[in-house]
């Protein structure tokens, strides 16, 4: 019964439907400019924690990000780009989530612990060469689902911490989620670090499996 439902759901559907492809590729220019303009803003005060009480755990106080990573020319330019494109990046994410929810795409993409946790561990063991064979994979493997789901959580943390920095008084209740203005600022940068890590692993995996790029461009064969 369940198996029939599953078959019906994906019948005629491509591995990467057009809306997923569109939102995926829109992320590329949007994220590049968001990261560049964000680093431009960060360069104006490349430290974490309030004046006179910098966070001891952050090792790079006073070290601005390199110029070639920045976008916007100067602080005001960086701010304008960041606050302009943030709307489109959020909108892009909302469209993606609505599509996933309404078309049932989340079933094959989102990490569900009871289904994916064991497989994710086995897959990790395989990548670490602790296991010789990869676990059986259906649409995505458990580790992929974990990665693609965690990036949604990271995106949410970036949006909330970003708003908390943007309007620390008007949206004070958001700031209190992160331990205040400077806490939100630290979370916002930490999120960038995790995003960079995700992207690095993502690009590495895509380089190892280049056919995935083609699928993300054409959508792949219909099921």
């Amino acid at each position: 019964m369940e198996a029939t439902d599953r078959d019906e759901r994906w019948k005629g559907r491509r591995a990467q439907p057009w809306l997923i492809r569109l939102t995926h590729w829109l992320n590329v220019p949007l994220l590049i400019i968001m990261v560049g303009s964000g680093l431009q803003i960060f360069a104006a005060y490349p430290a974490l924690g309030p004046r006179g009480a910098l966070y001891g755990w952050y090792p790079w106080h006073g070290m601005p990000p390199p110029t070639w990573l920045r976008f916007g020319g100067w602080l005001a330019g960086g701010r304008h780009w960041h606050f302009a494109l943030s709307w489109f990046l959020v909108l892009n994410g909302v469209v993606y989530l609505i599509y996933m929810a309404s078309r049932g795409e989340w079933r094959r993409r989102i990490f569900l612990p009871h289904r994916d946790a064991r497989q994710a561990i086995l897959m990790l063991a395989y990548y670490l060469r602790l296991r010789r064979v990869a676990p059986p994979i259906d649409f995505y493997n458990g580790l992929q689902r974990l990665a693609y789901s965690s990036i949604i959580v990271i995106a949410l943390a970036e949006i909330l911490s970003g708003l908390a920095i943007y309007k620390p008084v008007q949206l004070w209740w958001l700031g209190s989620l992160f331990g205040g203005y400077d806490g939100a600022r630290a979370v916002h940068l930490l999120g960038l670090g995790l995003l960079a890590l995700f992207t690095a692993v993502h690009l590495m995996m895509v380089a190892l499996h280049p056919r995935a790029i083609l699928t993300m461009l054409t959508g792949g064969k219909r099921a």
Partner: protein
Amino acid sequence: MPNMITRRQFVATVAAGTVLATGKTTQAQAGFLRWMGRWNERVDRLLFGSDRLAAELTPAETTLAETFPSYFISEYMPVAPASWVLKVGGLVARPTTFSLEQLQGMTRTDMRVRHHCVEGWSAVASWHGVRLRDVAEVVGAEPRAPYVAFRSFDAGYWSSWDRESALHKQTILAYGMNGAPLYPDHGAPLRVYSAVKLGYKMVKYLTEVNFLPERTGGYWEDQGYEWFGGI
């Protein structure tokens, strides 16, 4: 939302952003960013609550005075002339000149709030002075003046605000910091201090407050920083 964007506008804007990211044109940049800047300012003003107060902090949270940065644009630290007075005018019933003593004779307000610099740092100090809304009442600021401009003797540094933020309960003309009279590096003898604006909006070395019918600019605002600068 005051304004919804259409799908066509959205597509056009994203396309413009993509073109710009590759550095093909600089002409459209001003257009797109100006348009989005206007949109963000509308959101900024929508978020602003006239009655919403910033959190008052405890003495223990005060930033060590020597680590609280202070900026001026003059070549040397501006020093007030002996004849210093504050002129309050524009669309007011009674244009008035205040001496520091006169301002100190009015109801004093103390507040310890977090300072947010556009650069990203924050710091805490306590500030005392007279509420701008009290001064506005004394001079009879007219309702048809929705803007307030501040001028200084720091090489012409200035800024202009929306009336709502200027008359907010936590916007004061400060003559003291951390319990002592204002030091020259923090804007002596008088500066604007507010819990609801970014640092560059708070004009130091104050000389003039004018209630205006039209929106003007400011030292940093004219160079590209946001005019509203609310937090």
